[in-house]
């Protein structure tokens, strides 16, 4: 099996990054079982687990689908909003 490189795929997308204005915020020290759900389900692969088993999340690259809010809005996230107007992903094709 060839391991997917999602970051490379996201690299072709157009984003207006809202620096310093995260639209998704995670709790401190998230529950690992909950986090694992998002590791599986986030289409952008933003909920990473590094080689040492440490959770690494950055909302840059978000496709704004809402999956993480639906799955873990109550358990992991302290904030889930759409990015500010005009910010975030911009589908050139859709």
């Amino acid at each position, binding site marked *: 099996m060839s391991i997917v490189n999602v970051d490379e*795929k996201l690299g*072709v997308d157009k984003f207006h990054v809202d620096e310093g204005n995260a639209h998704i915020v995670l709790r401190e020290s998230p529950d690992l079982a909950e986090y694992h759900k998002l*590791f599986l389900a986030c289409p952008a692969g933003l909920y990473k687990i590094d080689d040492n088993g440490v959770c690494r999340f950055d909302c840059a690259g978000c496709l704004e*689908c*809402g999956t993480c809010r*639906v799955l873990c809005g109550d358990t992991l996230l302290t904030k889930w909003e759409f990015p500010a107007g005009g910010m975030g992903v911009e*589908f050139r094709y*859709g």
Partner: protein
Amino acid sequence: MSDFDAIIVGGGLAGLTTAYLLAKESAEVLLIERGNFAGAKNMTGGRLYSHSLEKILPGFAGEAPVERRVTREKVSLMTGDSSVTVDYFSPGLAQPGQDSYTVLRADFDQWLAGRAEAEGAQIVTGIKVDDILIRDGQVRGIVAGGDEMEADVTVLADGVNSLLAQKLGLRAELPPQQVAVGVKELIALPASVIEDRFQCRTGEGTAWLFAGQPSGGRVGGGFLYTNKESVSLGVVCTLSDLIAGNATLPQLLENFKRHPAVAPLVEGGKLIEYSGHLVPEGGLAMIPRLVTDGALIVGDAAGFCINLGYTVRGMDFAVGSGEYAAQAILQAKQAGNFSAESLDAYRSALEESFIMQDMRLYHKFPHFMETTPRIFAGYPEMASDLMAQLFVVDGQRPQPLYKKAGRSLKTVGTLNLILDALRGVRAL
């Protein structure tokens, strides 16, 4: 006195259709879209069945940026390395009234926005609606960036997540068993290559759905749609089941793309966009309260979507719901009454329309899919095994057909097969 007859939140097909029809009847309409243009946040697999938009804009496919008219429908059952496919080609699929088109939303939605603007609708983009304006218990418009804007009717066309419907208490948070997440690669290929690989003429194309391997054997599936100069390849998985597996969604798409039956179809293609979106797949069970004093809900926000495995619909419902919303708003305007009772004409019209007729007819299907894991892991293997029995010639002593078929059936159990078939047929 309100600033507008209607404020529409969201520039997708439902919102744009509402805006177009209201503006056409000289209503004062403001549509607010958070992306930098209508369509900037929208994506589809996908294919638009033309019938509902055709009613509103006859002959639209002649001028709108559609990709290809679908003349070939395919459904495949896939194992890790094999694929069994039903391939239906018919010019009948392209006949006016029953034709459907692959589309890419950034272009398509901008075109519809242009039509709405030409009728006088005001469309502002790059502005996010933060909240609903409520006065005396009635929706009176929206709040965006600290500014309040008033309208007699507010239309929530803000998509599957509809945070505004949740804020208004018209709907709770989406349950993970009622939504699927889709991920898609848009892969550029020359038109001539697409026409060769998919056996289609210029302007014509294929819609193709897959069960089995693409979703890793879990509830979901793969899709492939041919566009003019690109192929949309993706995977959709029901959230509640996806998280019970062990493969990540991006990995499932990568595996699907590398499947030996799929890889040659996209070989040499260049990834030009990677997108994701939620799909409201709960059917009738997830439709929220559609109307309240001064507001109504249309499109994906209202959960108007049907996935039957061999066909997926949402955009034709979005357009249709926009039409019924516009009619109800115009009636309410005439009566000068924007209460829930008055706007309930929208819900009544929907009940009589193809939208709710279809949602009702297929109301058992989401549950059937969810509770029949063999569709996703079991039947693809059985079909593959059966084909191998039929087609593999290896010089060994042959067996009669009934024995061959019987062996394949055993993999899932004949009784299971019969029961699933009966349940499936009853859910359709």
